[in-house]
């Protein structure tokens, strides 16, 4: 796996985790 791909995957996972985390926090944890 190239360095570029590794960097991109780390960054993309941060974005995805933030997106899902925001919704999950107020959905599953009810605020």
């Amino acid at each position: 796996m190239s360095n570029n791909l590794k960097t991109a995957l780390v960054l993309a996972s941060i974005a995805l985790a933030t997106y899902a985390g925001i919704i999950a926090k107020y959905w599953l944890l009810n605020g």
Partner: protein
Amino acid sequence: MSAVVDSHGHPADEHGQHDQHGAHHGPYGGIMRWITTTNHKDIGTMYLWFSFMMFLVGGTMALVIRAELFQPGMQLVDPDFFNQMNTMHGLIMVFGAIMPAFVGFANWQIPMMIGAPDMAFARLNNWSFWLLPFAASLLVISFFTPGGAPGVGWTLYAPLTVQMGIGMDLTIFAVHLLGMSSILGSINIITTILNMRAPSMGLMRMPLFVWTWLITAYLLLATMPVLAGAVTMTLTDRHFGTTFFNAVGGGDPVLYQHLFWFFGHPEVYIIALPAFGVVSTVIPAFSRKPLFGYTSMVYATFGIAFLSFIVWAHHMYTVGMPVEGQLFFMYATTLIAVPTGVKVFNWVATMWKGSLTFETPMLFAIGFLFLFTLGGFTGLVLSMVPIDIQLHDTYYVVAHFHYVMVAGALFAAFAGVYFWLPKWTGRMYDERLGQIHFWLTMIFFNVTFFVQHFLGLAGMPRRIPDYPLMFETWNRISSIGAFGFGVSQLLFLYIILKAIRHGEKAPRKPWEGAVTLDWTRLPTPAPYHSFETPPVL
């Protein structure tokens, strides 16, 4: 901006590097070039033209608003359409015009400034751009749906958004596409800067424009998903029975405001930081001096980015929050003046005792410096809780953020276009017309927006199509200024087209104070493929 074709016959640069091989794999011809291109210069060009078109669309909406406000009473549009104009003007200008303009600069300049052959993910770069026209189309199409476009303001506040027609769904989908484009673009920019710099170009040797974009890309990556999450929750509230923002089901409309502004305030710096980067490139070039305090500029950019995450609730002082909360957000907001002050001081110190000349890019950079600082000061005024409670949602706020967004970001974008146009096209713009464009823009901008401070201080609320007679004079002046400002931008279009078609051939380095790799190591215009072999610094 589309004059870069290939590099037939370009000589090796002054360091003897043969890194222009466009003749072997130049672009397709016709429309396929633009649809299929993976070249950072082509994609940068598309971003810039797209942003200018959106600027004209959003500007036309602003003129509808200002025409209605020319005198009290309802003249031209009904209140609902007025609200739709306000909403779409904001969304289109922020997401369609200003942000793509700076992504255009990033695409063109970052690889050339760090000695990289292209962006790290060239196909992803193409996709990031081509998401934008679809998102813009959704926003425009929303006007033709039952109920029209959403009239909720660019902030898309709940619970209004839960009540809007199908136009709201199109807008939510558009915001998702715009967010996806920004996130993919950010991943590309960060990866390019971290992994593809020329050997021996350490982080602290990067041009400040590159630094500001690196930090901006992290801001985008951290905040865009929050906005996407908030509008997704709006969507599920509308159609899937959730009540995130609906008090009837135990939800909280204020939660939306928290989520939006957690994105929205860093968004201000997502727009401002690349503008700082452009100005930090232009001012040293026309002062013929290195940028004063480079290291402190880098740390000030970090400081602004960090603080932008802990000040969001200064947009919400009036929702009812504990006084401790108000105090925290007030002090944190005031603190932003420190790193911003460092930057303003450094720009002025760069000019101090420099061999200054005042070509159009420098005029716009100085205009930026003067007016952005003014916008910063009114921001400080608004950060004060007792004052903000009086001025909240008045025209004072409108004046403030237009000094930041227009005089800040737009002036810097103009400075950047005039500065890099010779590098992009190989042609010079008409300097006399450029200067006329600057002065018309400068004068009409202030005629439009300075008087709005008075309207706000007198208590005129924003987002209303009608107003009491006492506000008429300043509104008339503001509307006249807006139309003058709008017409002045057609001159900009003429200047650019004239330069591309009939401009004088640009010398290799028209700005003697320019020191970045794009000017010192590449011919003008920049070849279609550059730095296929990393430059030796």
